[in-house]
């Protein structure tokens, strides 16, 4: 089934496409998109399922860093191409929709 390009999905893809080679973790993504972390997670899962992003656990010693490992996400080559193409064809989210998202962190 083709990925439905909701406003939230568009925001996540735009965040990745700002620097397609970079890796983002949940909190970073949430701050960049304005989405609540719980909302971003199912989107990341779907993107990963479609092969648009890959993910990995950060390799750190949590005791030394005093925090748990992060899960990093990165666009795949195919994902970058597909995302650019789909976003180019998608209608831009309205200001009102973005405001609603910022206020409520709506669900995709």
């Amino acid at each position, binding site marked *: 089934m083709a990925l439905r390009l909701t406003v939230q999905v568009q925001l996540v893809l735009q965040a990745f496409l700002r620097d397609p080679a970079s890796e983002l973790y949940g909190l970073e993504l949430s701050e960049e998109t304005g989405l*609540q972390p*719980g909302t971003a997670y*199912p989107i990341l899962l779907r993107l990963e399922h479609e092969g648009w992003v890959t993910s990995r*656990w950060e390799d750190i010693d949590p005791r030394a860093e*005093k925090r748990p*490992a992060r899960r990093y996400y990165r666009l795949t080559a195919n994902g970058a191409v597909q995302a650019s193409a789909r976003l180019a064809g998608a209608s831009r989210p309205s200001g009102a929709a973005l405001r609603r998202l910022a206020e409520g962190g709506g669900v995709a």
Partner: protein
Amino acid sequence: MMPAVDPREDARKSRARVVAVMTSITLVAATIASNSRYRDWVWALWLISFTIIIAFTTISMRQVGRPYRRRSADGDSRRGRRGRDGGLGGRARDGAQMAGPTAHQSRSLFIASRLMPGPAGDRWLAEAESLLSEIATARRGAAVRSYLRTAPRLVILLWARQALRAAARSRRPG
């Protein structure tokens, strides 16, 4: 001077709550069953199911804070997960002192993760823990709520995916 806190008090209260919940459910179920036109064995099934659900939930709640032993199936290196160095169970161990969700928030997330298929639930919980340990305290409540709000959809999605995978595997020859 602060009054001395009995460390066994919490455990006693928790046990009392569990017993109260189980007793009320059993009483309600028994009352319904006694006034029912259905056969006894139907209600016996209901009672057994209720008992299993309550027992499962209780055990899950009591396991919060214990080392985590379920194995991951995706083969990831997941240091910092619960039961080793950080997260729900490991947060207070080894003097790591990581900030994170409150006990109530942790319990809710833990129970939600148990409703998801094994490795997927583990991963969801680990990512939530990881994020919540870094997020500003003021935003933590909203973040936990967002995780819990999307959990039911995620449970359905993940189980559906699991079922499709199982069906595809069974169709494969050999």
